[in-house]
């Protein structure tokens, strides 16, 4: 056996020229080291999935303009993005919900919340109606509480004059995975209905008899295949997949569809100053205004206020560019709502406070 092995290895040695292997390995190593030295440092980010499509587009467009800058983003969820930023494993995070006080307490440096685009949560349904369904905040809250169980409930009928509503059971579909979408939707419910006070969050214990599905696709699938179903889905997904959505009554009593203009209307010029005072972490649900779609929200990129010089410079350059008309137009084309110009001016001014250090 040993003899056999020895002769075999000797033959192998003759077949493979070890010098060749060694020299090609060294060449490869040199190439890798050289390439690393030439390439810019990779800027890593992780977080929310809702803005992932637009961020991915922004990064690639920005890289075309600045070939030396490479940004890598992973949509792992807002909570994950914040956790990674706290752990210091990424250069920036992204979240649909601002950091909580408990999370802020865990970071040594100050974290800036930079709003990038706006989105909304739509109430999608599966009913054959002669006109789009109209709903008000309190009625939505009662559906998602399990108190309104039939579509021909007097409260729903009152909002939809002239529309024949069927005697069907309301099947409530919710998000089972923790998500920023749930956080925004439940915060809206807490604002419009006292029964919901204190129950908002990324994971909500919905009433017994509601059905949870994973992700927007899961909720949309559940709605599409059950007549009489109602559920909440993020606006971009709903608009792209042409799902039916309810017109929601805003503070002024108007029924509004979740179009990008109506979502952007949630930040009127007079509110910008207040939003700036709160470090841009404001909730904008149920805003006041005629055209306002009430279940709207901002989404943020999170960066440390102190960053190493080289990466920091590039990241700030990118963040400044996201506030340009060009970048915001790209967002609008992908069904995200653009930030109002006044707010973008304030964000640009605020970013000047980022400190870059030589390390």
């Amino acid at each position: 056996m040993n003899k056999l092995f020895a002769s075999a290895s000797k033959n192998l040695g003759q077949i493979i020229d070890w010098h060749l292997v060694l020299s090609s390995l060294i060449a490869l190593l040199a190439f890798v080291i050289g390439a690393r030295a030439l390439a810019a440092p990779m800027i890593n980010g992780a977080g929310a999935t809702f803005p992932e499509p637009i961020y991915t587009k922004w990064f690639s467009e920005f890289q075309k303009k600045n070939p030396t800058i490479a940004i890598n983003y992973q949509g792992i969820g807002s909570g994950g993005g914040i956790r990674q930023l706290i752990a210091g494993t990424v250069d920036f995070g992204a979240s649909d919900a601002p950091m909580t006080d408990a999370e802020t307490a865990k970071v040594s440096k100050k974290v800036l919340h930079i709003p990038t685009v706006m989105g909304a949560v739509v109430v999608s349904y599966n009913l054959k109606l002669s006109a789009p369904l109209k709903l008000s905040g309190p009625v939505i809250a009662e559906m998602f509480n399990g108190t309104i169980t039939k579509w021909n409930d007097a409260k729903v009928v009152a909002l939809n004059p002239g529309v024949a509503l069927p005697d069907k059971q309301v099947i409530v579909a919710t998000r089972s995975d923790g998500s920023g979408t749930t956080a925004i939707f439940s915060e809206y419910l807490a604002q419009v209905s006292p029964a919901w006070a204190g129950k908002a969050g990324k994971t909500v214990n919905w009433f017994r008899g509601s059905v949870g599905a994973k992700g927007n696709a899961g909720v949309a699938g559940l709605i599409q295949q059950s007549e009489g179903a109602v559920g909440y889905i993020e606006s971009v997904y709903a608009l792209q997949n042409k799902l039916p959505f309810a017109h929601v009554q805003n503070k002024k009593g108007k029924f509004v569809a979740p179009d990008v203009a109506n979502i952007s209307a949630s930040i009127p010029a007079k509110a910008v100053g207040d939003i700036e005072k709160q470090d841009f972490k404001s909730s904008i649900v149920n805003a006041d205004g005629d055209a306002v779609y009430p279940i709207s929200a901002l989404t943020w990129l999170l960066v440390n206020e102190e960053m190493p010089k080289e990466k920091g410079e590039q990241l700030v350059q990118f963040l400044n560019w996201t506030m340009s008309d060009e970048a915001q137009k790209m967002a609008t084309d992908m069904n995200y709502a653009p930030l109002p110009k006044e707010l973008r001016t304030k964000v640009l001014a605020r970013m000047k406070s980022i400190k870059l250090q030589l390390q």
Partner: protein
Amino acid sequence: MGIVVIVLFILIFMFLLTNSRPAFEAFGRGFVFGREWIPSEEVFSVLAFAFGTIVSSLLALMFALPISVGSAIFLTELCPSFLRRPLRFLIEMLAAIPSVVYGLWGIFVLAPFVRATIQPGLAAAFPYFGLFEGPPYGVGLFTAGLILAIMIIPTITSISTEVFDSIPNLYREGAKALGATEWETIKTAVLGPGMSGVVAASILGLGRAVGETMAVTMVIGNRADISPSLFSPSATMASVIANEYAEANSDLHISSLLGVGLCLLILSVAINSISRIIIWRVRRKTI
């Protein structure tokens, strides 16, 4: 090399144990035996998920076992030899379908069928049971059980086929010589000696069903709830981790999810150990 696997397992176990400690400290025994899971109020416990896991897996076994054993008998005893290979290949192919595909198929094909046909039918046939009550969602324990059944059929079938193949032909010839019919031969000379092998195969299938995540998450309805109705939404240990881990932001929530993972690991190890013991006893008997 084998030592690497053992070390890995011990490391994973230790990781879950140390990281889930805060949850066990906060809730004590209530963490395992409580029924509440309310992330927004920081109340966590495992029992509802353990219930969903065990019931959906047992349902799956109930649906899959007759089909699998029937297929195995057909393949070894009755099938013409030219069909045997392609059929075995097709059954093994079921195991190659990614679980997320099963999940999507479950949402769009199986769930509507369960809602429109199976549930009303069962509810009408057994009105006083309570097992088939509740509004027809189409997703829930029953649908999860069906999907899991399809997923574990290849496991149980292929192991049972091998068990039946290993039974000496002497048995069959003996039974035939005593004047047994085809069915009696199968019953006494194949199913009898192969029974413990079939039991071991089912337990392996059960182990697979317990750990299945994606397909179940998509069709079980995800409600942390213990309800007597088979058509009510439920959740399993694997599905709650898949659903909530990415967005969990409080330390207690994360630690509770890891605690659920620890319980799941213990359950899987228990199931697999039982099947190993059975297989070992069978081997000792037959050889």
